[in-house]
């Protein structure tokens, strides 16, 4: 291991790929249904909803753990969980 410091700098720290924690299902968007309400963004425990300004853009599958919460809260049923 290299030089240690007792602080961690988020700008250089590695980001673990917790996408691997998913257990068989992942969220998928039907963009046409999406109204950019951002409720999914608000609820996602893993900050895995990517935005473009204030518009829904996509899922960050590197970190999404597949908890299904976004699908649950989407008022437009724009998100569905699909088998990987």
């Amino acid at each position, binding site marked *: 291991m290299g030089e*240690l410091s*007792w602080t*961690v*700098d*988020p700008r250089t720290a590695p980001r673990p790929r917790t996408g691997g924690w998913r257990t068989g299902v992942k969220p998928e968007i039907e963009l046409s249904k999406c109204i950019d309400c951002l409720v999914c963004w608000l609820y996602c425990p893993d900050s895995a909803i990517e935005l473009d300004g204030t518009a829904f853009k996509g899922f960050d599958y590197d970190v999404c753990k597949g908890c299904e919460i976004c699908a649950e809260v989407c008022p437009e049923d724009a998100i569905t969980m699909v088998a990987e």
Partner: protein
Amino acid sequence: MTLELLTGGEAVAHAMRQIDPDVVPAYPITPQTPIIQNFAKFVADGSAHGELIDVESEHSAMSAAIGAALAGARTMTATSSQGLALMAEVVYLAASMRAPIVMALGNRALSGPINIHCDHSDSMLVRDSGCVQLFAESAQEAYDLMVMAPRIAEHPDVLLPVFVCLDGFTITHSAEAVELLPDEHVRRFVGEYRIPHAVLDVADPVTQGPFAMPDVYFEFRVQQAQALERAMDVFKHVAGEFRELSGRSYSSVESYRVEDAEQVIVALGSTAGTIKDAVDDLEHAGLVKLTTFRPFPAADLRRALAGVEHVIVLDRADSPGGTPPLHAEVAAALYGSGSELVGHVYGLGGRDFHPEDAVSLFAGEREEAAWLV
């Protein structure tokens, strides 16, 4: 410069006033109280300018000190005995988080039974914590060490808490001649407070206090231990500068009449002075006083005691069912040296130690006594 008649507690409070720390979180406990009370008065009167945080416990005193020190503020505090015991958990954290806090410790016996007088059991409780511990023999030394402490704590090679230990009552509450340096000299000597990654520097948003698994924890501990070892050089360097400022010199190990001594007592704190009086009256008897207990000056001690036949260690703290702390350190340092070694526990809970006691130890009259009750 004129001499003042000051108690150790007052002298330390004056050092604090002159250093003028930004934040002082503290909780009262005998015999530390004169320090914070005098300092509080300085703040109330406008001769010191820091934030005094009257915390609700010592655990919070040290916690607030860590917060303040890492936030970017020069931070000092003071405690004794139960106060140190209650904050023990956080003392380790202060060291490992590299918070350069300066703390005056009015040494007092740990309960129980409850007692307010001096011994070093409180210091010894946190001897593994990674903090620097400097012991003062007199009010003057307490003041001087307090002035040096921020320089050691804040040195980039160190970045660790520094305790200035002064014997409860014997030093904290006894008035004696003290020479104070001019305010300006102290302020210039300690300089500005600067640490890497101040929390309040929001442009540098780092994470402090992360979780360390077995893959990295050990390395953190080694780094921290190495910083404490480096504190020895830094202490010597700062003491050198301080000598130029004040004319008073400090070393990790002070040898008193050791040159031709066959027997030498090793001791900490105010008792060292008492022993000096005894040594003056004897032949072939000497004293070694340690100013730095952490880092422990093993190499300097070996050098100082080289060839001494009989070494007597005086511990002002016991380790029931084990070896008293100073004795154990000296045994490790002198292991294989050929010096004979005996240890005694003395002075617990404020039990007196007179020059005559030292004389009788040198005379070998109490060789078998583990406890000098």
